């Protein structure tokens, strides 16, 4: 055990002094332990490969910039880097969940465009214009209550206070406004659907 640690320390020393083969030996010696460690936390080959790569990029950068000072503890140091990258991965995936396509799950089941098509948007705009025209035909008191309620999102209490009538009267005007709208729509057979 002591011998392996010593060898790691020597290989690190050689690598820092410019022997690139030392890195190949270090990777070969520890690749399965590090890869297995990452895979035990994230059972996904692609992500594990990515994190393995990022781990060694950090290792290489640190060693080449002579910032490494943990002689004899190479593997625990690399494991700690891998662990930190795993934590980073989970933080990111929490914010942005990853969905993978499988036989049972199609990515298109959650990827859909809910926005209206150009044709449906034109129809929706036309429906709005038609509704406004019909509302204009309503008696003034009913039109006032309906606009306050539907377009200005006011409560019946607020409507009653502004118009100076009781809540029941405001409710009654709203009811008659809707009944009258329905009558006009039925009479002229207006289609108000997108």
């Amino acid at each position: 055990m002591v011998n392996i640690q010593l060898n790691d320390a020597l290989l690190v020393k050689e690598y820092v002094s410019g022997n690139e083969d030392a890195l190949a030996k270090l990777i070969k010696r520890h690749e399965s332990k590090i890869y297995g460690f990452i895979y035990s936390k994230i059972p996904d080959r692609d992500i594990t490969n990515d994190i393995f790569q990022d781990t060694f990029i950090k290792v290489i950068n640190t060693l080449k910039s002579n910032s490494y000072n943990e002689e004899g503890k190479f593997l625990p140091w690399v494991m700690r880097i891998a662990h930190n990258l795993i934590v980073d991965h989970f933080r990111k995936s929490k914010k942005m969940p990853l969905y993978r396509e499988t036989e049972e799950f199609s990515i298109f089941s959650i990827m859909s465009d809910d926005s209206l098509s150009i044709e449906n948007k034109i129809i929706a705009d036309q429906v709005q214009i038609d509704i406004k025209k019909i509302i204009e035909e309503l008696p003034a008191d009913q039109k006032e209550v309906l606009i306050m309620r539907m377009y200005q999102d006011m409560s019946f209490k607020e409507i009653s206070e502004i118009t100076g009538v009781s809540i029941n009267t405001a409710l009654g005007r709203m009811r008659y406004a809707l009944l009258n709208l329905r009558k006009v729509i039925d009479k002229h057979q207006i289609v108000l659907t997108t």
Partner: protein
Amino acid sequence: MAKLYSKRASALPLMKPKKEIVSFLLSYSKALTVLKIDNRCYEIVSN
């Protein structure tokens, strides 16, 4: 010695990264030069 009746569990194959990953890391290492000038680190990656 007691006889073992249970089957010996087959050893799991060692998990290893893709060869391309290791190859990339070795090439990256060869291409990377880190220069320290006035307490600042400069990373140079040659093509």
